[in-house]
Structures are given as C-alpha cells and as structure tokens.
C-alpha cells in the first residue's frame, strides 16, 4: 500500500515510518513459531523491503530517508547479508556516480564496523580506499564528496608517512589543475596536521610559509570563504614556533 505513496512522495517522513511499523509487526509465518519457516516468512518480508529501498536509491541515490531505512533494515533483518556485501553495494553506487556523498558516507560507516570487528584488515583496506579516492580526485577535483571522504580516510591520527604521501599526491594534481580550490584547501589542512602532530620531525617554518601562500591563493579563487582562510592564517601565526 505504501509503495504508491513512496513513489510520489519519496521524501515524506511518515510514509517511511509507517512501513517500518508494519515490518516490525509482521506476525510469524504460518509454520509453528520457532521453526525455520516462521522466520523465513519474516526474512522474505524484510528482503522485499531491502529490494524496494534499492529501487528507490536507483531513482534518487541521495534520498536520505531511503538510506536511513536501508541501514535500519540491515540492522533488523533476521538473517543479515554479509557486511562485505554492503561494502560492495556502496562501491557499486559510487562507481555509478561518485558525486553521491550518501554512498561515501555509508561506506565510511561500514568500513569502521568491519575494521573494528576484525572482518577486514584495516591498514590493507585503507590503502585500497586511498587508491579509490585518488582515482576519484583526479577524475573530478571539483567534487567535494571526494575531498570530504579523503579527509575521513586520513583522519586525525595518520602517520607522517601517509600525510606526506597524500600531500605529494595532491600537489601533483594541483600542478595539473592549478585552479583547484579543493587541492589548495586540502593541502593547507594536511600541512597543518604535519605541523601540529610532527612538529619536531618536520620543517614547521617552511610548512607554515607554504600554508600562507596557499591560503592567499585560496582567498583569491574562493572569496566567499575568505574570512575562514584569514582565521586559519592567524591561527597559524599563533602556533608559530
């Protein structure tokens, strides 16, 4: 019943909620409770809703009600699919359109849970993610989804080696695309991280000077946010050695 309503009003909260309520109140199947079949009945209903949600996401890959609902189903379904299957799903969504930040977001959540459960080797998997995101960033440096995901991947506790490697990857891209705001902005961010986290191992003064130059360039090509760049500049000065 709610299917028709969802097609016409895919963003109305209560329709999604009504579906949720229906699922939770599905009776056990005709087989005696506790037997395999009874759960099979429920499983089929949940499976069907997973399918409905995928249809919705094919139509509008950014519908966050649908993504929320998907996460909900995956957390409640009697026999959940392997977490890696969901990872592959986000990859497929990203490959078909990587401006879809919703899919990157979902991917970050799945990876976190896979890493913490030990189902996926964190350092190896991170390297794969870096490769994926580097491809995306070179393909379209103007897409902010890519840079936000990259920032997540680098995180707050990256090694100096990783930071320096990523700085060099982005610098190469900047050389090819000198007007890329996101390259400039990310370089400032990661260089500041180097300064803050590895003060004694890096040439902080040189990095600070580089940040200054980058921020000046940023103010020029992105004047809407020039106040933010100014703030960062004065923070840099305060942190000076």
């Amino acid at each position, binding site marked *: 019943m709610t299917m028709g309503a969802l097609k016409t009003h895919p963003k109305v909260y209560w329709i999604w909620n009504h579906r949720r309520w229906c699922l939770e109140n599905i009776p056990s199947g005709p087989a005696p409770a506790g037997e395999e079949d009874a759960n099979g009945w429920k499983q089929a209903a949940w499976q069907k809703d997973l399918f409905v949600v995928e249809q919705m996401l094919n139509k509008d890959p950014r519908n966050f009600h649908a993504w929320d609902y998907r996460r909900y189903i995956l957390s409640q379904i009697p026999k959940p699919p392997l977490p890696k299957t969901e990872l592959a799903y986000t990859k497929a969504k990203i490959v078909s359109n990587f401006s879809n930040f919703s899919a990157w977001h979902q991917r970050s959540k799945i990876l976190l849970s896979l890493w913490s459960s030990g189902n996926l080797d964190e350092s190896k998997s991170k390297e794969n993610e870096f490769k994926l995101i580097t491809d995306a960033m070179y393909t379209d440096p103007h897409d902010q989804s890519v840079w936000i995901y990259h920032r997540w991947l680098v995180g707050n506790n990256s090694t100096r080696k990783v930071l320096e490697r990523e700085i060099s990857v982005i610098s190469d891209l900047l050389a090819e695309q000198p007007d890329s705001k996101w390259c400039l902005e990310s370089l400032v961010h990661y260089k500041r991280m180097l300064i803050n986290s590895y003060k004694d191992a890096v040439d902080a003064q040189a990095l600070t000077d580089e940040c200054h130059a980058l921020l000046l360039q940023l103010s020029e090509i992105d004047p809407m946010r020039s106040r933010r760049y100014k*703030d960062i500049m004065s923070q840099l000065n305060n942190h000076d050695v």
Partner: protein
Amino acid sequence: MSIATLNIPLHVKYIQNLGKSDDELMYHLTAHLRLNAVYWGLAALCVMGHKEALDRGEMIDFVMSCWDDEAGGFGAHPDHDAHLLSTCSAIQILVMQDALDRLDIPRVVNFIASLQQPSGVFAGDSFGEIDTRFLYCAVNSLSLLGQLDKMDVGKAVEYIRHCRNFDGGFGSRIGAESHAAQVFVCVGSLAILDRLDVCDADTLSWWLSERQMDSGGLNGRPQKLEDVCYSFWVLSALSILNKLEYIDSDKLISFILSAQDPEGGGIADRPGDMVDVFHTCFGTAGLSLVGYPGLEDLDPVYCMPAKLIEKMGLRKGWKALERRSG
C-alpha cells in the same frame, strides 16, 4: 530582473492571506503541517516586525483547538493525534503570544518526557519514529517551559554525540549522513543544554561554510542544490559557533531576495519556484541573522524573537551579524 530589497508589506499580506484560502487543495494536503505553518507564519511576521498582522485571539483559539486531550499534546490540526513537532510549534506560538496560561503545563511536559527513548533520543509520537529533530523539539519546548529537569539530559547529549559524523555534521539518527537541518537541531539542542563542547567546531564550521554555492545560496549536503530554507539552518548553526562570517552574506542576501515572488509575495526554495510559508519563514530568518536592514533580531537557537528569549533569560552565547542600516 533583480529584486534588490525585501518586500515586507507584500510578504505580510501573503502570510495574512494564507489562512483565508482554506478551500484550496493545497490547504488540505498540508493539514498534517497546519500548526507548524502557523508557527512559521508568526515567526516570519515577528522577524518583519508585523506580529500583529495575524489576529492573536484567533491564533490562540486555533492552537488550543489542536489539543489532543487524550495524549496531552498538540496535533497538527484539530482532531489529529498529538505529535512532538506540532506540540513544539504550539508551545512556541503560545510563548510568542504570551498565552502560556492557556496551557496545561504538567500534562504537556509529561507527554514530551514520555517520548524520550532509552537511548536518549525522542520519538515523535506513539508510533515511535525517532529523529534528532524530535529531540530538539523536546529540548526547545521543555526549556521554554523551564522544565528541562524532566528529561534525561545526559542521555540526550550522548545520543547527539553518537550522531556526529567525521565531517563535523550531524545526522537524523546514529549512522545517518550529515544534513544541515539536523546540524541545526543538534547544535541548537547542545546550545540550550550548554554542551557545545560536544561539537567539533572547526570541522563543523568548515563543513557549514562549504554549503554556500556559487549562486550565493546554501545547500543542505555536499553536491546538492541550494535551497532558501538552509539559509536559516546553516546560518543558525554558524551563528551559534560564532562563525557567521565564514559565508558571503552579500551573495546569500541576493540569493534569498531573488527567490521572492514579486507579485503575490512569499519566498520560494529557489528563484522561479512556487512560494510557501516554510521558505518565507526561513528566508526572512536567514536575512535577519546576517543583519539585513529593517528586520527584528532573531534568536538562532529557538528561531523566535531574540528580545523575547532574552527577556525569558534563555539567551545563549550566539552572535549574529550586526544589523545594517537601511
């Protein structure tokens, strides 16, 4: 054609006329938002300095006609079941009209508090949908009524903390993608609860500043279209973080003004679209926060007149841009 100024008389008239066309189809289609719509209209009028344009007595009577005596809360429309969204709007209206004496405060507080879940978040009604929006409604309402002690503040803050994403933003529930409207409700709740330490202010203000598009308008998430309603949600969060100057207010102002309907009044989601009271409210609210001349100050935490909130002793440490002279 560029519309250089906010046509206040026309928008006031637009809002006055809204209630009169109750034979129109849209009126019935939006019944589930009726009480919210009254709040949006009133808030917009207050910002434009024309609170009196809608009849106070009629408005209070309408609010009271939405009371669901069984549940002890307000529905969106007479005979609708009580819901936290409409209950919050009702309380906001009654506060703005100085009519709290009409309200059965203990019952409504009980209704609100009963919706808090073990996780700390709130459900919208007895059907159990959860969302940080409902948490904000509860926090907002209870603080207006001076009854924050009736909810578990610690748990609510923890829930919000778990909704925080790596981009600094917040989602509708744990695991959900950051969205500017959810950022507003979470940051607003934390501000009311004096727990802004939960925010990653640097990252969040970066994410918020990147909501501004080349058109000057703001979007709600990366790689999405700009929409006037985010003018309030993004700006409110930025002003609570005291970072309003991270966006280009001149460009935003001209974007909002270009979404006005120069004939019938009202503001749309973006230039050329149909206007509605929701975007009219959040468009004028946004203009007020960036200091557009001739408007009243708005409290970004409560989305209510700043003077009123200050008088109630509820003002937090937010900062709007200085009001420009006309």
